[in-house]
């Protein structure tokens, strides 16, 4: 082992250092810009944070950016929309996937394979390949500009169902039989044994799906037309407008930082589950 790493890993340190700079630099610049006055940004003095941060964040969070060039709603509302969307999508996907995987794995019934393939096929039908008709269905159901419209159409999940199925197949037969002898029926076994055993899988999926929900773009763009229903990610791009020098970059970057913070915190706080979730869902 040691002989393969005998030299001081200077090269490794340099490369990793460059990687870290590359990773953090854009976020750092966004942060400093959010704390600087527009004049400083225009001059390009971006490497160190300024003193305007508190005011900028207070403005965008609670009043919204109302300048001569734009009238964006308060970011607190957008954050709330994103949070609802991410939580409902993550919880919804997990809930309906865990029960459908349970049905497919622990029961035998006519149409079982058909049901499985129907779920599986959704892997090949992302929103991006059925934009207009999906929009029409949601519009037809009167779900435009609603939380239901933002979330329900996304909570089917082949990935989560496959993951749970995979895990359920590893539960020993004897455990099921022991439960039967103990007198537990299917729902009892599900609630008392299968769900508790699925805890780590649920946590891992939650991280991945929370990020998935938070980072949605095309879907909210299609489904919402009212500014107060926008998610924060959509809100940012609307604030950029023409994207030229006239953009209030300090406000945009403050919003950007707020958009990055929640998913980043989830990843940092649930690092282990995140890695597990990412690797497991690709199996």
């Amino acid at each position, binding site marked *: 082992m040691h002989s393969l790493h005998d030299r001081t890993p200077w090269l490794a340190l340099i490369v990793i250092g460059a990687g870290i700079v590359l990773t953090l630099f854009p976020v750092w610049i966004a942060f400093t810009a959010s704390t600087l006055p527009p004049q400083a940004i225009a001059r*390009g003095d971006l490497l160190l944070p300024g003193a305007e941060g508190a005011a900028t964040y207070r403005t965008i969070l609670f009043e919204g950016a109302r300048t001569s060039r734009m009238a964006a709603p308060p970011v607190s509302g957008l954050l709330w929309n994103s949070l609802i969307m991410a939580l409902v999508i993550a919880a919804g996907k997990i809930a309906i996937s865990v029960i459908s995987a349970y049905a497919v794995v622990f029961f035998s019934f006519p149409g079982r394979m058909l049901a499985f393939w129907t779920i599986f096929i959704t892997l*090949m*039908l992302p929103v991006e390949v059925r934009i*207009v008709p999906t929009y*029409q*269905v949601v519009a037809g159901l009167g779900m435009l500009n609603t939380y239901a419209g933002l979330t329900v159409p996304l909570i089917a999940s082949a990935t989560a169902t496959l993951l749970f199925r995979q895990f359920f197949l590893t539960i020993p037969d004897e455990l*099921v039989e022991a439960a039967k002898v103990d007198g537990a029926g299917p729902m009892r076994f599900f609630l008392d044994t299968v769900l508790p055993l699925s805890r780590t899988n649920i946590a891992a999926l939650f991280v991945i799906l929370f990020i998935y929900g938070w980072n949605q773009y095309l879907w909210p763009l299609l489904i919402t037309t009212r500014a107060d229903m926008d998610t924060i*990610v959509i809100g940012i791009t609307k604030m950029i407008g023409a994207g030229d*020098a006239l953009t209030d970059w300090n406000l945009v970057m403050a919003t950007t930082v707020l958009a990055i913070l929640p998913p980043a915190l989830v990843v940092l706080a649930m690092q282990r589950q995140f890695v597990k979730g*990412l690797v497991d869902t690709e199996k």
Partner: protein
Amino acid sequence: MRRKVIFRNRWLPYLLLAPQLGVTLVFFIWPSLQAVWQSFLREDMFGLSSTFVWFDNYRVVLADPGYMAAVRRTAVFSVAVALAALMPALLLAVMVDRMLKGVAFWRTILVLPYAIAPAVAGVLFLFMFNPSVGVVARMLTAAGVDWNPRLDGTDAMILVVLAAAWKQISYNFLFFLAGLQAIPKSLLEAAAIDGAGGWTRFRTIVLPLLSPVTFFLVTVNVVYAFFDTFGVIHAVTQGGPAKATEILVYKAWYDGIIATDFGRSAAQSVILMIVVIALTAVQFRYIDRRVQY
């Protein structure tokens, strides 16, 4: 694929499947069938009636030089994003794998961009590369580079590729690192005893053993570049300047939602559907191969 020991119940499994199947049928299967159906229809100017036109929409789409340009553009964009996201990720993973300590710490920082939405990554890059205020754009200008993604199509393409790749590096890094750490150290020690130097070991042992991961990541990155980068394009360039960054997904969205040409948008959707099915099939071949190991 089923367990040996199961429960017997006539209606419970259907009840458990109902929510998933309901959402799937209403919001996935039905719209997809609609897309196929609409791709064979043409609406009149006022959207009042439609006629069945067989493959006319496909003929129009495929004969449209604008569409074929978008196909080529998407190919260039996907390959560029995949390369720009895979190479640095592999390099970083190899270096982190060589570290004896602190692997978890470096990993934590390097995976952070995964949490960032593609559109937000686009905004970060838009800001850094903004010709008038961007830090990086200033450096480029100072270095004598004529940089203006708002006017120059190539500059714009480079910008969206960078933004899209930057976000994806963390994902690839994680998988490469996992792949590297799964290689038994004893293999490398055996190779070292056989007289293989560091580079030879990497080329003859590490890369071949990493090939399933690499293959998997290539398909994932292509899928990502095809579909998930809509946000990057929409936030950074809106497909411009002069359609220089209009990739297929963006065009399908634009033609359907903005230009409301449902028939042609549907035909484009169906073509994209075929692409996804092909890519998914490729990806599952990878899983088959891995099962054999």
